[in-house]
């Protein structure tokens, strides 16, 4: 193994220990001056700094990947809806956090407890049923957050459309087409120019697909489901 500049063991461990914070800019002023003064006279630590700056810049390099948080947020909201049944509803405006956090103390004659418990159970059951229904609806409605063009089926339940638009299409035209078809962009374009689109209304996907296919600015459109539940109305 070669002992190239900056790769040998630190000659000055106390300065070496400060270098990461010097490199990321979070070091205090007094220590920064100390490191500066040392670097001016120590070639070995300058090599170490060079190496560490390279690692730092490599690790902070921007990636091209962007995530769309809205779908993930919808899933979090569904989970929160789920725990809403088990916990008291949080305080609304005007009510302090303290009062919201503490359970209310209710005084009730014991004769009423039986009837009240039956009522509470009935309410709890209905809330549970409603919550399950909400969860089911949320899962069914949530479009997949992404899928690749090499996989024939979307990752999560829910239909999506892959489409390629004409290279001459303007942003305004693209938005107009999507609005008309009641679709929104989930991801894309890929390097091949493929957009993944999901429904933003209850309009049948087959109808949106047909509309896309009829549009001159759409080069290609297909559903991501391999076996659509209803036939496409291809023009």
């Amino acid at each position, binding site marked *: 193994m070669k002992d190239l500049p900056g790769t040998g063991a630190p000659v000055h461990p106390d300065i070496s220990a400060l270098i990461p914070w010097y490199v990321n800019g979070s070091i205090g002023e007094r220590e920064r001056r100390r490191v500066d003064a040392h670097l001016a006279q120590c070639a070995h630590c300058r090599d170490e700094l060079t190496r560490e700056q390279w690692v730092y810049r490599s690790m*902070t390099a921007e990636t091209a990947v962007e995530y769309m948080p809205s779908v993930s947020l919808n899933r979090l909201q569904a989970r929160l809806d789920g725990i809403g049944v088990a916990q008291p509803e949080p305080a609304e405006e005007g009510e302090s956090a303290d009062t919201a956090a503490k359970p209310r103390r209710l005084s009730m004659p014991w004769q009423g407890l039986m009837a009240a418990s039956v009522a509470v159970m009935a309410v709890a059951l209905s809330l549970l049923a409603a919550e399950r229904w909400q969860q089911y609806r949320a899962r069914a409605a949530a479009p997949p957050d992404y899928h690749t063009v090499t996989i024939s089926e979307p990752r999560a339940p829910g239909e999506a459309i892959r489409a390629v638009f004409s290279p001459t299409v303007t942003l305004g035209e693209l938005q107009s087409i999507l609005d008309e078809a009641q679709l929104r962009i989930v991801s894309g374009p890929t390097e091949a120019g493929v957009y993944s689109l999901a429904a933003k209304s209850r309009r049948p996907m087959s109808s949106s697909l047909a509309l896309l296919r009829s549009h001159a600015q759409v080069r290609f459109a297909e559903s991501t489901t391999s076996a659509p539940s209803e036939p496409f109305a291809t023009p």
Partner: protein
Amino acid sequence: MAKHSAKEHDTELLVAVAAGSRRALEELYLGYHRRLARFLSRFTPRYENVEEIINDTFMIVWQSAKDFRYASQVSTWIIGIAYRTALKSLRRQKNHSSARSLDELPEQTIDPTGDTEVQDWLMHGLNQLPMEQRLTLELAYHMGHSLEEIAAITECPVGTVKARMFHAREKLRMYLPSLGGAASEWTARGG
């Protein structure tokens, strides 16, 4: 109207979250999602895992906001929750894989002549680090946190953070023996 700093805004949002505001939680979520997603995606390529860690983090934020003592910054608290959630999740994932330690690696034969190769090589070296050391390095370099902030995020003494950083750098140094040369060339090119 005086412009609030991001820190003050986060504090206001967390106060509202503690009082039960779902809208405030949503705003906090959207404010942190990009930063957390980019950080977490350095450990796991699958967005499902990234999303799971972020959503688990914000479930805890929702449930624990009323217990936050404001002794630290809100961002430090949230990233600390994400750190512990990620650590748990990544350990679980690692148990399913057959990751090797640095000591078991054969002598390197890759010649890091191009930027991409060197970057890949660095990422491979990072992947070999023990999880706490890797996370410490990522919190410092990718996220830009200070030594004290990392101690608060990881709930460890400053000395532990220093030790993790030392060992992480030492192992990378052993793993990437010729990076000194690559780094010099790269720096000379203004990369």
